């Protein structure tokens, strides 16, 4: 498995630790970049702010996006990802505690590729993360050079 980057946007350090643990227990050894709020996530993706100078072409294979975030929330992050040509085809998986209908609908309307609710049961959580990693890092094919990126 080549070293595809996973961008984890998560403000809760416990959830961050548990997600990382679940990934490692599922033998997913990819680099995980953690952004702890919406601004940080967007800075990373667009290589600006703290992440200025980073090669913006080095895109994450998948972004795991929490919805409730400080400063800029998850849905706003998603909206900006989808409106920028460089990132509009980026796979984004919403990984959240919320099962509110409105969040689901808004998530998909803004172009989320998937919506996963974090289970309380850690065993179930680990299983969800394992399948997620398997699917997006191994099975899923993404366009190397998205047509929109050239514009």
């Amino acid at each position, binding site marked *: 498995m080549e070293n595809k980057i996973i961008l984890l946007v998560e403000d809760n350090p416990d959830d961050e630790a548990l997600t990382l643990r679940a990934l490692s227990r599922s033998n997913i050894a990819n680099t995980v970049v953690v952004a702890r709020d919406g601004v940080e996530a967007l800075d990373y993706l667009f290589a600006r702010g703290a992440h200025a100078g980073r090669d913006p072409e080095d895109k994450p294979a998948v972004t795991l996006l929490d919805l409730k975030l400080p400063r800029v929330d998850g849905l706003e992050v998603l909206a900006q990802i989808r409106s920028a040509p460089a990132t509009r085809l980026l796979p984004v998986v919403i990984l959240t505690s919320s099962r*509110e209908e409105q969040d689901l609908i808004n998530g998909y309307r803004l172009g989320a590729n998937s919506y996963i609710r*974090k289970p309380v049961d850690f065993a179930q959580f680990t299983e969800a993360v394992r399948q997620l990693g398997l699917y997006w890092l191994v099975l899923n094919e993404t366009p190397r050079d998205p047509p929109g990126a050239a514009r």
Partner: protein
Amino acid sequence: MTHGDLDFERLFRDAPALLLVLQADAQFTILDATDAYLRATFTERTRIVNRGLFDVFPDNPDDHSATGTRNLRASLQRVMARRAPDTMAVQKYDVRRPDSTGGGFEERFWSPVNSPVLASDGHIRYIIHRVEDVTDYVRGSLPEAVQHEPSDAVERRNQALEREILQRSRELDALNRNLQQINEALNAEIAERKRAQNWLSELLRSAPDGIIIVDREGRVVLANDQAGLHFGYTPEELMGQPIEVLVPDKQRRVHAKHRAGYISTPRRRNMGEGLELLGQRKDGSFFPVEISLSPIETAEGFWVAGIIHDITQRKQETEQIRRLNEDLRRHTVELEAANRELEAFSYSVSHDLRAPLRSIDGFSQALLEDYAAQLDQTARDHLARVRAATQRMGVLIDDLLELSRVTRSELHPEAIDFSALAESIADELRHTHPARQVKVDIEPGLQATGDGRLLRIALTNLLSNAWKFTEPRPIARIEVGRYVAEDGRSGFFVRDNGVGFNMAYAHKLFGAFQRLHTANEFPGTGIGLATVQRIVQRHGGRIWTEAAVDAGASFFFTLRSEASS
């Protein structure tokens, strides 16, 4: 001299008039006559008293055209009928000469008047017959020259003139009759109008609305009782007062101006299209009135009739309705705010309350995995309990969220294939509990109208319960079917042959967190049936149950749009 001293009999008999007093009976019996009458008719009192009039004075048998008795009788009958005097035309009514002077009839012309004498109770006591002997007058009207003509010519002329006078007299009589009839008709009409007027004024007086009529100068010419009551006056006190006394001081000048304007262009103004004004009572207090106006044309020009409603009560009611509406609006706003708060709370619960649980469960598991060697059996057992509790709380939160969602979410009713819905839920249950052997009988062709998502939640809860509580049964059976009540309303039922429950606790069944079994016996949060009931109620239906300990349970429920098969 007092009346008692007057000799009325003497006075009557000596009266210089031809009077006859008759009994008001069929024969018109003669009671008395004046001496003058007796002389004029060649009779004596003793001969005529107590005899019938026409017995004493028959027609001249030699005069075949005599109509005297007939006319007199008719006149007397009119007096009887009308109880009013009757003046007759000049009559030729010959009188019998006394036998002492040769007998036979003597030609006479009379002008009679018949008058009733009424008793205090109105019935006729006597009739006074008064006549004037006009024979000389009739004779004397013959022209002077004629009197010198030869006697037979004079006689002929005389007869012709007599005939003419009689003819005229008869015409006059007829005319008189006619006038009398007209008079009677008029009297009747006047009486009728009086009755109508009485009736109208009674109506006006007792009308439940205040009625005031003012003249051109705005002075009260009529006020009824109710108008008086409204304003605290007697109707008499209001008569002649300027209408402005009933208007609050501050508005009097304006009112007078408006009134003058109205008089110059009077038109009907109905209740409701008019102004709402304040009336001022005699004691100075005010009350709201509604007034309708209509001009009345009278001999003195336009008057104005006003009908006055005291609208105090209506005002109060309107105010109350306004207040209630206000309250309702406020409550709605509060409710909406509460709803939004609840929504925010639910979101918060959904998101924030679950995150710590995940940490507790996740790190407990991490401990178990990473430090298994250092943990003894008791420590591992403790951690297992921590994990079980967190997971139970997770389920609890989820169930509560569902209950809240079921309450908040909008209804989207549609036609539902209820049998297929039950079938698919049963399939899910079989799939989740592959070890269980449950026989599920679902009546085919069940249709319902309702929100598909909510009905699925309700039916899932009911079937899961049935599934759960039939666990101890070697042969578990669940039935889903249509139920028809005696009143024709229909609904659905879910029946199982599970452990059932004591009906004494049935009322607790549908409350949130109410459980009839311990978590050791059967796991559960006690929210499922509360959710089902909420869904049924939101569909305008109701849910009830029949059960017995160890004899299974049946849940019946209706939806507003009943099932039909």
